[in-house]
């Protein structure tokens, strides 16, 4: 036990003391935030105000066209096409719209916008929206429907959902649950890959630099493997804590500097996968009872389970990665092909997870959340939907037991492969041989 902690301490310290650790730990969130900041900057500043002169000779708009940050409409009286053109060439306006007095615009005539420079796609869409909205209203009003009637006809009725057991299954909660499910599932996915690969590289380094046998003469291979897994796990934990602190810190700073930006950020389609979740967040955040939705999520349960599945998943996969690392010789390409059977279930888990987030009670989601190779990722997506509702207690307990059994199993198998693999040089090792090492009686 003492030796495991010695090994773990070295693994931890050598990684944490490296310059690259500081660089990635502090640099990565900075880069991500720099990216965000740039996107926000461009999306905010891209709308150079397009000024448009409108000569509404038929008086269709009655001087009512909504001005936005990007487009300003100015209604001018007594202008001809030629005089408008002159004003536009004199850069007074970016473009003009001339509506003749005899227009049948409310039927199907088109409006023509003439400009000096090309107008960008987004600005075009904006202009079209504003004009169509106004036209729609004018048409309805011409049918003698009052504005009040119009508004009340447009009113949406909301559909609320509830389960038979009586708990109120509000949309808000669904949105928050989905976001939390996605976020925690992806976080575990990333953890498994980054730190699993780190364990594998560490084992390969020991093998390639030929230190394995020197160490194994004073430490049991199992102790060496577990020390490495614990040490790197600790690095991961520290890195995550730093990231979370930086992310929240920066978010706070940005929110202080640009108060409206957070709202805009949520609308940005930054990660396709989290778009849905972000969408749900947006609709939810528009609602004053958003906090209620948050309050309905059982945070204690989610955080507790996240830690459990994070540790379980890491222990389960990192020992497999260690076994693969021990089987690899100098050629890193061998690692690629040997890694495939390990990465497949992780990717499979992510696929199930994206389904489980939407439909936490489907058969595939239940299977994925019980099977130990996929449960760390899939179960998190289901747990976010609430524990006795989406995940019955017996499933949660069974899943946890299977995960514990799973990591004891993989560690046991991996230790046997590792023990043989790290002392084997110059021979390309196949899965068949690794299978033999793992299951022969010693």
């Amino acid at each position, binding site marked *: 036990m003492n030796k495991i902690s010695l090994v773990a301490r070295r693994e931890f310290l050598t990684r944490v003391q490296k310059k690259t650790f500081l660089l990635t730990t502090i640099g990565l969130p900075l880069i991500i935030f720099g990216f965000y900041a740039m996107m926000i900057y461009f999306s905010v500043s891209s709308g150079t105000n397009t000024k448009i002169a409108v000569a509404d000779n038929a008086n269709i708009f009655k001087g009512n066209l909504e001005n936005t940050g990007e487009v300003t409409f100015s209604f001018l009286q007594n202008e001809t096409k030629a005089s408008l053109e002159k004003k536009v060439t004199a850069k007074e306006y970016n473009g003009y719209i001339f509506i003749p007095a005899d227009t049948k615009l409310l039927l199907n005539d088109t409006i023509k916008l003439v400009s000096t420079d090309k107008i960008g796609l987004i600005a075009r869409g904006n202009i079209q929206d504003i004009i169509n909205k106004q036209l729609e209203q004018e048409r309805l009003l011409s049918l003698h429907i009052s504005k009040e009637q119009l508004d009340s006809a447009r009113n949406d009725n909301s559909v609320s959902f509830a389960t038979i057991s009586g708990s109120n299954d509000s949309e808000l909660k669904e949105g928050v649950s989905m976001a939390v499910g996605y976020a925690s599932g992806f976080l575990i996915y990333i953890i498994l890959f980054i730190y699993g690969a780190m364990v594998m590289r560490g084992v390969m380094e020991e093998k390639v630099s030929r*230190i394995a046998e020197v160490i194994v003469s004073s*430490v049991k291979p199992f102790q060496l493997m577990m020390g490495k897994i614990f040490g790197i796990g600790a690095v991961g934990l520290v890195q995550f804590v730093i990231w979370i602190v930086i992310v929240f810190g920066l978010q706070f700073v940005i929110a202080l500097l640009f108060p409206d930006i957070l709202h805009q950020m949520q609308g940005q389609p930054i990660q396709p996968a989290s778009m849905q979740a972000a969408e749900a967040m947006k609709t939810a955040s528009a609602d004053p009872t958003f906090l209620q939705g948050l309050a309905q999520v059982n945070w204690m349960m989610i955080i507790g389970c996240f830690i459990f599945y994070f540790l379980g998943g890491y222990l389960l996969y990192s020992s497999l990665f260690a076994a693969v690392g021990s089987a690899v010789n100098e050629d890193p390409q061998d690692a690629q092909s040997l890694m495939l059977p390990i990465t497949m279930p992780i990717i499979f888990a992510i696929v199930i997870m994206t389904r489980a987030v939407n439909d936490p009670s489907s058969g595939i989601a239940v299977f994925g959340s019980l099977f130990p190779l996929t449960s760390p990722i899939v179960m998190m997506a289901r747990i976010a939907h609430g524990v006795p509702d989406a995940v019955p207690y017996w499933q949660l307990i069974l899943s946890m037991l299977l995960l514990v059994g799973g990591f004891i199993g993989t560690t046991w198998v991996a230790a046997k492969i590792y023990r043989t693999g790290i002392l084997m040089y110059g021979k390309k090792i196949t899965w068949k041989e690794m299978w*033999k090492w793992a299951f022969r009686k010693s």
Partner: protein
Amino acid sequence: MPILELYNLKKYYATQKAVDDISFNIERGSIFGLLGPNGAGKTTLLRMITGIFYPDEGSIILDGKTFDPINDIIKIGYMPEERGLYKKMKIGEQALYLAQLKGLSKADAMKKIKFWFERLEMQTWWNKKVEDLSKGMSQKLQFVITVLHEPKLIILDEPFSGLDPINANLIKDEIYGLAQRGSTVIFSTHRMEQVEEICDHIVLVNLGRKILDGTVQQIKQNFKENKFSIQLSGIAAGTISSAFDVIDSKANKLTVKIKDGFKSNDVLQHFIQQGVNIEAFSEILPSINDIFINLVENTNSRTRSFQNVEL
């Protein structure tokens, strides 16, 4: 009482018998040579002695007690043939780490590292990294790491590979020193001239079996072919005798083989009777190298490359 006793050790792999019923004892304070061609089972044998592998059968007695791979590690220092160090780690920290893994406390390890670094003039290396060292230097460091806890049993697998003669002599002197201070050294090598020079006792293994066991002198005596070299002052008139055959003659230097039933004095008498002055007369003992090649070749082993050393 011997420091190490091996009884009927066996380790079988799926395709071969790596160690097939080997027993021998190693005396305390001796320098012991474990010889054998590549693939003979030396490394497997050493890995069992160091507790890396468990034997399939047989027992290992270390220091009078059954070998306990977990607690007896501090008594053993093993330098494997496939050896290396963490390339990016500072040398001082590395030595400290490896010493602590053996079971030394931090303060104890520090004291011993300082002693050895000073002894081998390595103090300035402390903050260097292994990747900055030459091969010979890292070899020296490896030796220090192996012996710094002054184990009772030191196992060195090809300790001189990659060392220049000066450093090889330095290490050799340290090995003698350790043996004098009571450590026992097991020395596994292909380099026969070093075996003759250093080892008290040798065991030769081939195809997983022990084929030779004894002191260097004793083995040479056992394998001697009754060959003598004679240096005469002049050319002898007659070299045909019933007592010996001449194998080789160069001017007035002869190599003779004495026939069964005759003694060396019969040879001397033959020349004295002819009135030739004998300037030198000595027995030619076979080199360990010759004995070795002889024995191994006869057993059609899988010897891949056997170093033939120019003496």
